[in-house]
C-alpha cells in the first residue's frame, strides 16, 4: 500500500500551518522544570518593584528559550488584567488609594508565580513529562499524571458545552446569577452534578481505552523516544 495514497497528507492541512508538537525547547526537561520552580519561588520571595521587573525579564527569556508562542503570553496577560482589576478593586475598597501599590505588587507576584509553570507545561510533551515523572513515581502513576494533564482541555470543553446547553434551557447560571443565593441550587444541579458525572464517565472511557491497548500488561513500561527523533529543522526540506 503506497504511503500517503489518500492524497491528504500532513502538508495538505487546512491553511498550511506547521502542526508539529511543541516540545522544541532549547533546555533539557529537568533543567526547564528546575528553572520554572526556581522562578516561581523567587516570585513569592521578591517584593521590591525593580526585582519583580527583573524577574519578569528572566521569565520572558525563559519563554523564548522554551520556544513557546506568543499565544500563551497573550492568554496569560488577559488573566493578569482581570486579576489586577479585581485585586485593585478589593484593595481600594479596603484601604483606599493606599491599596493601589500593594494590589499591583500582589498581582505581579501571583502572575510571576504561575507563569513559569504555564511555560513549562506548554513546552513539554506528554512523553517527556511521563519520563521525568517516572524518576519519582511508579510507571502507572507517571502515566496517570500525564494523561490527567492531557485530558484537562477536553474536560473543560465538555463543561463549557454543558454550561451552554443548560443556560439555553433556562438554568439560572449566568455569571450575574452567582450573586443570587436563590440561583445556587441551579449551579449545583445543572452544572456541577452533570459535569462531575461527565468527568467520571470520561475517566471510565479513558481507562477502558488504555486497557484496550494493554496498559497495565507489563510492570516495566518503556517510553517513546520523543525528541530524540526530531530532525534538525534547518536540515528539513
Amino acid at each position, binding site marked *: *500500500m*503506497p*504511503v*500517503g*495514497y*489518500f492524497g*491528504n*497528507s*500532513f502538508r495538505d492541512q*487546512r*491553511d498550511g*500551518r506547521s*502542526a*508539529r*508538537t*511543541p*516540545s522544541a525547547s532549547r533546555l533539557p526537561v529537568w533543567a526547564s522544570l528546575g528553572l520554572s520552580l526556581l522562578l516561581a519561588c523567587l516570585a513569592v520571595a521578591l517584593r521590591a518593584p525593580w526585582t519583580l521587573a527583573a524577574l519578569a525579564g528572566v521569565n520572558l527569556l525563559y519563554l523564548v528559550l522554551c520556544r513557546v508562542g506568543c*499565544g500563551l503570553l497573550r492568554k496569560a496577560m488577559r488573566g493578569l488584567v482581570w486579576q489586577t482589576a479585581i485585586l485593585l478593586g478589593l484593595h481600594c475598597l479596603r484601604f483606599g488609594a493606599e491599596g493601589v501599590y500593594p494590589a499591583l505588587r500582589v498581582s505581579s507576584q501571583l502572575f510571576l508565580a504561575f507563569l513559569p509553570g504555564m511555560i513549562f507545561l506548554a513546552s513539554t*510533551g*506528554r*512523553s517527556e513529562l511521563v519520563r521525568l515523572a517516572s524518576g519519582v513515581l511508579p510507571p502507572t502513576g507517571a502515566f496517570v499524571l*500525564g*494523561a490527567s494533564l*492531557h*485530558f484537562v482541555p*477536553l474536560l473543560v470543553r465538555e463543561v463549557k*458545552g*454543558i454550561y*451552554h*446547553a*443548560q*443556560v*439555553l*434551557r*433556562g438554568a439560572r447560571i449566568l455569571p450575574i446569577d452567582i450573586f443570587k443565593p436563590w440561583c445556587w441550587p441551579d449551579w449545583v*444541579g*445543572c452544572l456541577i*452534578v452533570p459535569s462531575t*458525572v*461527565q468527568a467520571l*464517565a*470520561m475517566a471510565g*472511557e*479513558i481507562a*477502558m*481505552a*488504555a486497557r*484496550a*491497548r*494493554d*496498559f*497495565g*500488561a*507489563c510492570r*516495566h*513500561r*518503556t517510553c*517513546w*523516544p520523543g525528541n530524540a*527523533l526530531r530532525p534538525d529543522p534547518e536540515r528539513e526540506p
Partner: protein
Amino acid sequence: MVELKGYGYAYPGTEDPILRDVDLRIGAGECHCLTGATGSGKTTLALALKGLLGAGTQTGGIRFAAASGGADPTVGLVLQNPETQLFATSVGEEVAFALENRGVAPEQMVAKVRVALQAVGLDVPLDARVSSLSMGQKYRVLIASVLVMEPGLLILDEPAAQLDSRGLDELRLVLHGLAREGTALLLCEHRSQAFQGLVDSYWHLDGHGRLQRGEADPLTPSPSAERAASRQRPALARAEAVRSESLAAGAGFDTPLWAGASFALEAGQRILVQGPNGAGKTTLLRMLAGLDAPREGELRVLGRKPSLKTLRGRIGFLFQNPQRQLFEDRVIDEVAFALKRRGVSAEERRARVAAILEQCGILDLSQRSPHTLSFGQKHLVALASVLVSDPELLLLDDPFAGLDAHCRNAAWRALMDWRGHSTKTLVWTSHHTGDGPVTADVLLTVEGGRIACRLLRK
C-alpha cells in the same frame, strides 16, 4: 481465528443476560458486521472478545486459534469516541502507546510505528500534532495504534458514527487492505450499509441477547416518516428567521474557518447544514445561538443580533451527545425543567410534558431515571427537554449520530410533529451526504472555507 460457542454474559447485579447463547466464528481475512439497537450488547460482545469485561456472569466460551508462535492471537479494539482514546500529543507517541505498555525497547519502536502508519496509509511526520489531524486521520491513527500490536482480529465499535464521507472512504480502503493481508475484522455498526462490499457476513443482536443472521439496512429515513413530513409541511414560509451578510468564522490571527457567508433563511424552513468533519458546521450553529461571535460580517437571528441574553427562551439547541446535560432523577422532571424555569403552572407543565413525551415515544419512561436509560432513550429525553419549551428556532448538532434506526425514526417523527402546524424553523447538521436532502427545504454546504446556500424546495 476466533470462535464463540454458546457464549452468554450478564453484568453484575442483573439477572437478565445481555448476551445469550451467542455462536459466532470469524476466520482470518473475513469481515463481519454486527448490527443491533443501542444497548443490545454490541459493545459488550466486543469487550468480551478483547477480554475487558469485568466481574459478571459468563457462560459458554471463546476459543482463539493459536497464532504462528503458539500463543493466542492479539485482539485489537478501537472504541467509539476517538477523543477519549487519544492519549498523546504527537502521532508517533500515540501509535507507540501499546508498545510502551508492553515494555518494547524505545529503539525498536520507531520502525514498528512506521509500519503501522504505512498500513493505514498515513504519511505524516512522527512528531505531527494529533490535534492538527482531521477526524478521519485521527481514526486511522487509532487503528494504527492498535495494528502496532499485530492483532489477528481487529474490532471497530461504531466506526461510521464520527466520520464524514471522505473519512469513510479512507477507512474502507484501509479495511480492504487489512482483510486482504489476513486480518479478521469485526465492525459493530448501526450504519451497516456504510461497509457494503467489504462485509462478508452480517449479524444482528435482537435486543434479547440473541445473535441472528442479519443484513445491511437502509440509511435514509423511513418512507413513512418522509410521507408524514410532506403531509405536515406548512403551506407558506414567511418571516425572516436568519439573515447573514459576509459572515466569517474563526478566532485569532489564523485563516478564517469560513468566510463570505451570505444567506437568508425564512421561518418555517427546514435547513440542513452539511459538510465534512472540521469544516465549521458546529461553529455556524454556535454563532446562530449567540455562543460564538462572528469574526466579520453581520448576523441577525429572529430579528436581533444573537446573544445568550436576547435568544434565551426563543431558541432550542441540542448539542452533540446531549445525554450529558441530563441531571434530574426522573425523566418527567428533566423534561419539565425548562417550563419550571419559565414559571409555567404545574398543571400546564404536566400536560405539555406528557404530550411531548408521547410525541417522542417515551411516555412509558416518564418515571424512570434518565441515567439508567440506553444511549438512544437518553437522546430522546434530551430532545424532548428541548422541544417542550416550543422554541421558535431549533438548532440540532448532528442529532442522529450514533442512533439506531428505531431511535432515529422516533427522533425524526418527533421533530416533524413539532414543526407540523407552525412556522418553527429547524436547522440541523450532518456530516453524512444523503442523510437529509430528501427532507430539507434548504441545504447549506460548508466546505473549503465557504458556505453555499441552495434552495431545495419552495
